């Protein structure tokens, strides 16, 4: 009962937000949704697969760039660009996964970082396609079934719907037997291999699935901003997502969502007062890794359990 009640309160609160909150907060929450999908997709790799990727911005940036490029330079409509961008990004994820998963652990981290830096450098340098440092501008939001997303509230509901579906499907993935096998490869790769599981394929499928949801967040990102810049492919963007996952608690469902929200709020509020977001993020990174390495959600859960047991 209480569990259901909590869900109903949460759903009602999210649904009512555009009526009670101003446009600034509605937009902020939409951005949190996008960051939450992005961080949750990275969490599949980092938290459940034990594969620390520092190149996740590739998927957000690539999908956003592809969608923007196809609509600007090829003049295609959103009905064509969205599936094409998702498909192409997922195919690139297949290839990148094949390369990166030659290694695990820190080797994996370095290769994902190097690959994403290659995309970032290309976005900067290939000016004829990407407009370089200017970024691609003049984009539009789609209007699914004639429902314009131009107002803050309608985009909010669209992002909310996509987020609910995305988080649900990622939760299903984790809860499935495949998800259990994935956690097995994280904790005991050799034993899993001895039990007859194909560890490499399990990791690769997860990599591709994670890339797909990263691409979904990238589409939302470019729809929201109507603009895409190489910075979205930079190591800072990957690091923000990883920081969200780790701050919230990797390997938990709620962790990355909470973490992404914290990062987004910090970024929005603090940048209003201080210009030094990068430096602040660096400090948050260092402090969290040293003092709350488990993340906020497991930490809070532990305190809650202790309080209940009193």
């Amino acid at each position: 009962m209480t569990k259901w009640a909590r869900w109903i309160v949460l759903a009602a609160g999210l649904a009512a937000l555009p009526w009670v909150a101003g446009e600034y907060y509605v937009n902020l929450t939409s951005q949190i949704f996008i960051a939450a999908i992005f961080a949750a997709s990275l969490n599949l790799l980092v938290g459940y697969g034990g594969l620390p990727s520092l190149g996740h911005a590739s998927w957000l940036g690539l999908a956003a760039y592809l969608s923007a490029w196809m609509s600007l330079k090829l003049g295609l409509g959103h009905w064509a660009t969205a599936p094409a961008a998702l498909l192409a990004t997922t195919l690139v994820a297949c290839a990148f996964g094949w390369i990166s998963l030659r290694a695990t652990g820190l080797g994996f981290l370095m290769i994902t970082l190097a690959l994403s830096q290659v995309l970032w450098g290309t976005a900067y340098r290939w000016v004829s396609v990407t407009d370089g440092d200017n970024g691609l501008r003049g984009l539009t939001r789609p209007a699914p079934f004639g429902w314009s997303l131009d107002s803050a509230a309608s985009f909010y509901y669209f992002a909310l719907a996509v987020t609910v579906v995305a988080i649900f499907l990622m939760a299903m993935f984790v809860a499935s037997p495949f998800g259990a096998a994935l956690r097995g490869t994280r904790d005991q790769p050799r034993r899993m291999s001895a039990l007859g599981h194909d560890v490499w394929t399990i990791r690769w499928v997860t990599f591709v699935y994670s890339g797909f949801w990263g691409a979904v967040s990238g589409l939302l990102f470019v729809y929201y901003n109507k603009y895409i810049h190489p910075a979205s492919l930079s190591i800072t963007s990957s690091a923000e997502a990883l920081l969200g996952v780790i701050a919230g608690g990797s390997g938990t469902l709620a962790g990355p969502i909470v973490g992404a929200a914290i990062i987004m709020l910090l970024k929005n509020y603090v940048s209003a007062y201080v210009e030094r977001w990068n430096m602040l993020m660096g400090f948050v990174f260092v402090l969290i890794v040293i003092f709350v390495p488990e993340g906020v959600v497991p930490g809070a859960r532990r305190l809650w359990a202790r309080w209940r047991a009193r």
Partner: protein
Amino acid sequence: MQYWIIQTLNSLALGGLLFLLAAGFSLIFGLMRIANLTHGSLYMLGAYVGVTILKFVPNLWLAALIGGAVIAVFGGLIERFILRALAGNALGQVLVTLGISFIVADFCLIVWGGDPIPVQTPLALQQPLRIGGVAFPTYRLVVLAIAVVTAIVLYVLMERTRIGAMIRAGVDDMPMARAVGIPVSKLFTAVFCLGAGLAGAGGIIGGPIMSAYPGLDADMLPLALIVVILGGIGSLLGAFVGSFVIGAIYTFGTALLPDLAYVILFLPMIVVIAFRPRGLFGRRTV
């Protein structure tokens, strides 16, 4: 003809600078199992610190020595006080170095501003060397020579001295090295200082070629990563060969296909990872 000679020398000079960066990165990774993501920032910090030192000491080589020492101390402090607190937590250590790299990048932006700062080439080396009617940019030759000398010194240090033998033992099998009484912990600090110092000095020596600008760290770090993935982790020879291969690919790629220079960079990496995941000269898979 002249164009190609200049491009070749550019590529060799970039390879030399990359070696100063990648050798330390590779040794630190090999010995400590830390992918030190501050390494690009140490290079950039070195370049900026060099700019400041040059205001007081009008000699680039002296500035490179002083700046290298400053960055080595800075690296030592990071290792002693931050990385040491996270011993055994490899991912945590990498994330901390990433956090520090953001802090350093922003710090440089605050202190030295957002405009690129050019560094003057030493007067004696400004004139190109003329041999048979062809001009060779002298400074690039000197950078190449510095890299080669550094490589030889590092090689002798690693292969012919007791400390080098201890470091190699640590790279190959750390628990066993500890068990036979090698002070691995002190070596960690020493190697980290050495790597940081090389990166910092590289930043200053590279100053007349690349100048000091925000984003220098993000430009150099991926190149160093690719060099190390290509050459093999913990291998000096790998870092040396990899640096010049990547230096050449990057320079000629930028000259011939400026749009896709970064894509071309990634081809040799794919080939090596596909057929030899440990890198060309690596002893252990990553």
